[in-house]
């Protein structure tokens, strides 16, 4: 696991670490990551960190349908 992602995972489990500025910066300084990632984490710039780690540029967030009736009709037509 990349150290930056591993760090975020740990941070998700320990909200107090994210809240304390000194502790947050100190824990980032211990990570074996390059300067760009370190700075992105320090600045809390998620988009920049994602870019550096090769994350997807565009994410879609929808798996719901507004009209179930229309959806079922569509599925039946496709079948």
């Amino acid at each position, binding site marked *: 696991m990349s150290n930056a992602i591993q760090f975020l995972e740990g941070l*998700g489990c320990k909200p107090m670490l994210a809240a304390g500025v000194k502790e947050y910066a100190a824990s980032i300084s211990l990570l074996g990551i390059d300067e760009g990632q370190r700075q992105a984490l320090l600045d809390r710039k998620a988009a920049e960190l994602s870019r550096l780690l090769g994350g997807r540029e565009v994410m879609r967030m929808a798996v719901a349908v507004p009209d179930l009736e229309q959806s079922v009709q569509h599925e039946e037509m496709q079948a």
Partner: protein
Amino acid sequence: MTAGKGSLSCVGLGMMLGAHIGPRARATIEQADVVFGAVSDPLVELWLQQMHPDVRSLQPYYAEGKSRHDTYREMVGAMLAEVRAGRQVCGAFYGHPGVFARVPHKAIAQAREEGFEAHMEAGVSAEDCLYADLGIDPGDFGCQHFEASQFMFYRRRIDPSAYLVLWQVGVAGDRTIRRFSTGPAYRRLLVERLAEDYPTDHIVTLYEAATLPITTPRMEQLPLSRLVDAELHMQTTMVIPPAMALQRDDAMMEKIRQLDDGVETEAVTT
């Protein structure tokens, strides 16, 4: 070689990277033969990819101008193809896999219809985060949830003495299911509908749950009328607080009082 009996588990990752995933969801991901992921943030997707060597993103199925009915059908098809091939398949979805999520429900129903074992594992949804971040207890006044477009397409009886939560307001009024945003004209119609029950200066909240532990949730308050020009995303939810006090049902209260009196009389005589 004969393929084993396939199965499907749809699990929720929760909303925030590292914060919400449960041990059962994690174990299901790690022990699957193949994992399909539909998540909310590129860093969350990278996190998921590091949990298993064969994680396949469902993102490529989306496309501007493509019907999301087709997108969802293809997503279900991709997962089911692996189940039919005898593999233990995990669908990992952001939030809760069963809340405002057609794909996991449809995939599980279809897998069961074809005789395969299928299971859904609950997760922490945006709704759960909303209650915590906005300090709302749905038990106080009640809480109604609607998908924003559905709310516009059908006549619904809403109760302005309860909370009203509208999901996917960023695509409100999209009949085509091909767009990832609709514009001010569509939102104006939504405001027009809401104005039947709420004053247009009623303060509402635009909410987006935090997806990373280094970010904060969006909790933007504005008058209802300003929704028309507000910045909205696919994940934006609108929370409308009650606009009127609870109306006591005196007739029902009287019937209950009479029942109580009867029960008390019965208790005294026995």
